[in-house]
């Protein structure tokens, strides 16, 4: 037996569709402001809860990502009071400016995500392995250095070089209208 009214069911379906489509963008936005994977995941969870609770306030056919990022922004502000001092990278003024830019760029960041998959494929296998080891769950620079037989210093340098290479590759693909489609 379910007592959920039909319009509420429709509303929930819309919510799930929107979140499924845009959750990655919201995560990227959060991560940009809180550059720690676990903290960002926790904040995404908290944001998802509030988005669900307040979904009735969302105006259909308006910018869902901007609306959800606004909710994420308030969760980030709230959580900053609880973070250890060492985790706070910027003061409120700088963070607010970055948040504004990141919110405006959500669509571009999503397009870059798609293009990045193809740029990753273009890396030499050894370089790709280094990058993916650095970013895999439980990985890190030291694990990437260990597995690739590099010193820590060499691994940091290689990662910076590869991140820049990927950044340029993605920018180039988007500039030529290639996006994420090979």
């Amino acid at each position, binding site marked *: 037996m379910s007592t959920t009214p039909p319009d509420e069911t429709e509303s929930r379906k819309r919510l799930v569709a929107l979140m499924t489509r845009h959750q990655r963008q919201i995560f990227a936005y959060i991560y*940009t402001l809180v550059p720690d994977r676990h903290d960002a995941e926790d904040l995404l969870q908290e944001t998802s809860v509030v988005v669900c609770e307040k979904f009735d306030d969302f105006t259909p056919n308006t910018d869902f990502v901007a609306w959800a990022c606004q909710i994420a922004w308030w969760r980030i502000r709230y959580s900053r009071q609880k973070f250890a001092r060492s985790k706070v990278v910027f003061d409120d003024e700088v963070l607010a*400016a970055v948040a504004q830019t990141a919110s405006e760029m959500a669509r571009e960041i999503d397009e870059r995500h798609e293009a990045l998959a193809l740029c990753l494929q273009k890396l030499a296998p050894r370089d790709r392995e280094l990058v993916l080891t650095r970013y895999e769950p439980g990985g890190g620079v030291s694990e990437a250095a260990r597995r690739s037989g590099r010193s820590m210093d060499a691994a940091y340098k290689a990662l910076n070089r590869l991140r820049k290479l990927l950044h340029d590759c993605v920018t180039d693909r988007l500039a030529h209208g290639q996006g994420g489609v090979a």
Partner: protein
Amino acid sequence: MTLSDTEIIELNELCGAVVDGTLTDAQRVRLAACLRDSEAARRFYARALGQSASLHAYASELHAGAPDAPARVSRLTRGWFVALPAAAALVLVAWVALRVRPEAAPVAGEFVARLTGAKDARWTTPALRPGERLEKNQRIELAAGLAEITFDSGARVTLEGPASIAIASAWDSTLHRGTLKASVPPEAIGFRISNAAVEVVDLGTEFTMIADGRGAAEVLVLKGEVEAAPRAGPQEAILLRERESRRFAATGVSDVSDRERKFSLLHEPLLLERVTQATRLVHWSFDEADGPVLRAEAGGGPLDASDAQIHGGSPEAAARVEGRRGKALRLDGRRYARAIAPGISGSTPHTISFWIRVPEDAPLSEAYSIVTWATRSKKLGNRHAGINWNRDRTEGPLGALRTDFRGGHVIGTTSLRDGRWHHVAVCFAPGDDRSDTPVQVRQYVDGHLESSTVVTSRAPGPAVEEDPALADVIWIGRRLGPGGPRAERFRGDPDELFIADRGLEPTEIVALMNENRLPGTALAAQP
């Protein structure tokens, strides 16, 4: 304004240091100055950090598919759902599904609680009767009287009408108005009740929430402690201990008026009419000193359960080891046992409960099957269901409890493959024969509800040979396949196997774990 090459190289290095956690104070000051003053720098920063977010996602997907990767589980997939409302959980299920296995999809219409008691209850919504299962997202409107809801997590709440509550999941509900008294056992710590004014996370306790329906709520703690987070303003969560109370509203947090009288009322016992569910139960203790026969005890009514017979491997004397209680059955990858469990192949719910110890180095080839049985219902067809540990890391944590059946599976979170004893209970409810009724599976490990979401897979499991002799047979330590019993075996030590002919309540599962018996059910050896 664009960035010069030098600025780009510097920013790239600074962004890398942020992501890798190596930013020095001097770099922090420099980066902050760049971001404060330059829109171009902010745009570069957003792209660089967004790229790292993407790399985390791609690396997670590939890591999940790596055959030899160590068993690490992202916090995204580990225990996320326990604290989420249903819609949020559904959303996250969808996202996790996209990240891990694109074809996986959650099944809606899941039962997460049961009405376990009532007194003089009058309902605004359609009347509910004690014993009735309650769905995710179900809203309950009690006009008057008392109603007790037991969540599958083990948390129990008593509503006093007029009251309105929305059940979000086995771990979460929203009290819109009315009075609620929550009792949360250790297994359900983390159970959450929210309201427009406050969100209360139970840390193992008894507490009451009184919601006025206009956005304010009072929280009074009777035992233990809770964490209460106000919804309004930036105020942090408050830890409330025994005999402490607060009122939460949009205007802020204040003392509860008339608190002594309210506390004294809460200590008055509530006499509810509870439903008593008959249970037929069969138990194999594996306590025989040796020999090929494993004696069955049955209780709760006539049941043609059989003693189990050990097959394969030798010598039989090596088939017992010290167990969690008395002796346990030693399954060495060759040995298995077979018994009759009446009704297990049909459509009615069953609970299969046992202790299990899986060696840390148990090979992936010996993950199948701790307990397996053929299914003979219209929905599940002539196939099989089995309780295993997960050996496919693309689908869930390696070693976690896993129940497979036609067209779906459920995977928990705790690895059983650690050489220690774990208590396992699986409530398996195939449901009626309508295809739109989901199969309900609740998995408990060490008394904790680990998973109840059914993930459907594209291809149904292979058909089992339509051998009538397979119906109502359980196999301990042997896998079934299209041709009937297969060569794959299980390595590990099961102990104290119980099969009950209904979905047991969380408190009953804890009783089986702690006391090795079901309250009110006497057992006797099978003739």
